[in-house]
């Protein structure tokens, strides 16, 4: 930070100590994967010298967040800028850290169940599904088919709700206000179904270990079918507003590109991975719940840019509706709860179970010591891992693209920080 920093007349910028400027010459490796040479890809700002001209500009370090309208919560991104061009970023996270994993070690398996809803609070049902299935696996029991179908329906509805929230906020970040209200209007219908089913709208705690706590309410199927007829035209409406909008195309095409190789190396999952052209979805790859019974497509993108991620998610919303339509027509009769001991004492052992949450692979690694409390629960949060890709996606882009990319990664800080 030399002299002549704009706006820096009186005092130095805080947090410059976190930036480590290493004048390492960047080798011009023309490999497709930026991560191939791992020493080049670091989370801290390891930056080469900017192109020198005699009208050289000074670099500007800007703190985006933790209180910033476009960081979707308390994410702080330190941007190193040359003009408006991003030279590098560093994410500072942990502002919302509540020690969920520590709490788990001090609660019984049943007591911990509601806590998982608080991680990815826009997709609470998915979190609950992953946790319940993981513990069921550890107990070596299986939920009855009726419970599995209810789980699939609610989880897919939740995926829809999560994607709608993503679309609204993402579009708002890019400057389109209207989709936000449209998506919230339609998300409301899903939340109404949740509320009718279990009394809660956001942190639903819909499932229990071994099945579901509640039988479906009267008219559940009708409500869902009503929603299935209601939603497709609304999704078309969002697409009408955005998909072919010239400004939207310019803002999203070739922005935040992440190649297939990079996406795999960075462990990115979910729509972000699929938009890079990897046809991988845990619901197909390792079907859980009742997903093997249903027929659906995995939408993939080609370029791995923001627009592809947008189209992938839009298509995923349609596929979710397709799954729900298949499921709701043939919910089997029968019990909704498996025979679960009153006091859960899973045998000593460990298990890793993951599901396809709206944001990517959500995994639970549970170690049991034979007592009623888990010895260790590790949550593999999709947002946390996906956020790591931010740096590689925005280097060389402009500040406005950083906003777009944060939006397109679809992070929820509750899950990143846990």
């Amino acid at each position, binding site marked *: 930070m030399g002299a002549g920093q704009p706006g820096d007349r009186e005092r130095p910028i805080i947090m410059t100590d976190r930036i*480590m400027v290493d004048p390492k010459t960047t080798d011009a490796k023309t490999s497709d994967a930026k*991560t191939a040479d*791992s*020493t080049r*890809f*670091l*989370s*801290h700002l*390891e930056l080469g010298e900017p192109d020198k001209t005699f009208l050289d500009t000074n670099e500007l370090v800007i703190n985006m967040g933790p209180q910033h309208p476009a960081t979707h919560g308390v994410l702080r991104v330190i941007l190193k800028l040359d003009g408006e061009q991003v030279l590098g970023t560093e994410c500072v*996270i*942990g502002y919302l*850290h509540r*020690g969920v*994993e*520590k*709490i788990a*070690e*001090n609660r019984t398996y049943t007591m911990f169940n509601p806590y998982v809803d608080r991680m990815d609070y826009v997709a609470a049902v998915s979190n609950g599904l992953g946790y319940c299935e993981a513990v069921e*696996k*550890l107990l*070596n029991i299986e939920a009855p088919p009726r419970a599995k179908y209810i789980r699939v329906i609610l989880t897919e509805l939740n995926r829809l709700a999560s994607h709608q929230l993503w679309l609204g906020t993402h579009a708002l970040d890019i400057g389109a206000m209207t989709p936000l209200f449209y998506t919230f209007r339609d998300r409301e219908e899903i939340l109404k179904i949740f509320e009718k089913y279990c009394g809660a709208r956001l942190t639903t705690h819909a499932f229990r270990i071994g099945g579901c706590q509640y039988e479906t309410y009267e008219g559940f199927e009708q409500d869902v079918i009503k929603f299935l007829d209601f939603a497709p035209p609304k999704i078309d409406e969002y697409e009408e507003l955005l998909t072919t909008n010239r400004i939207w195309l310019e803002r999203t095409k070739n922005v935040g590109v992440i190649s297939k190789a*990079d996406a*795999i*190396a*960075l*462990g*990115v999952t979910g729509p972000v991975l699929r938009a890079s052209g*990897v046809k*991988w979805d845990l619901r197909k*790859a*390792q079907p859980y719940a009742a997903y093997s019974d249903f027929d659906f497509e995995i939408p993939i993108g080609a370029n791995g840019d923001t627009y592809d991620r947008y189209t992938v998610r839009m298509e995923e919303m349609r596929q979710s509706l397709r799954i729900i339509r298949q499921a709701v027509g043939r919910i089997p009769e029968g019990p909704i709860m498996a025979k679960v001991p009153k006091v859960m004492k899973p045998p000593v*052992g*460990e*298990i*890793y179970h*993951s599901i396809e949450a709206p944001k990517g*692979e959500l*995994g639970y*690694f549970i*170690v049991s010591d034979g007592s009623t409390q888990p*010895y*260790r629960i*590790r949550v*593999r949060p999709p947002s*946390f*891992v996906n956020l*790591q890709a931010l740096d590689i996606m925005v280097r060389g882009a402009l500040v406005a693209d950083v906003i777009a990319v944060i939006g397109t990664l679809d992070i929820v800080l509750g899950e990143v*920080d*846990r």
Partner: protein
Amino acid sequence: MVGKLKGQYGSGIREANTYLGQNYMVVEPSVVFELLQILRDREQFDYCVDITAVHYPQREKQFDLVWILYSFPRNERIRVKTMIADGESVPSAVSVWATANWLEREVYDMFGIRFDGHPDLKRILMPDGWKGYPLRKDYGIIQQDQEWVQANLGIESGQ
């Protein structure tokens, strides 16, 4: 696959087993880095799902370090486990999978396990100056770094 690897490393792989349909192997810390690299390059485990640790304070080698790997071509998951003592460090897997960067930082943050060769090993979820590693078993659930809380938040207790 395990047989092949066992032939190569012999005693390096202590155990290779399946529990509840999930494969895992327990290996010596000395061979773990090489093994991870081979798993990626030869066995196509191209996706590192997670890196985490479990603390067993009673044991001599206190920590179980766990790598969960997935192979897209084989559609198969495997867990690689190694046991290390407190203060011992393992080579970083960042050069194998870029995603290991933050995951290893989190393990360091929560357990205090150091990774050799990690580009930027520092706390990720906890504040930089925090003392103690919260996910160790000897760290109480309401325990906190009083000094840090006082200095940075200006309050006596965060609870």
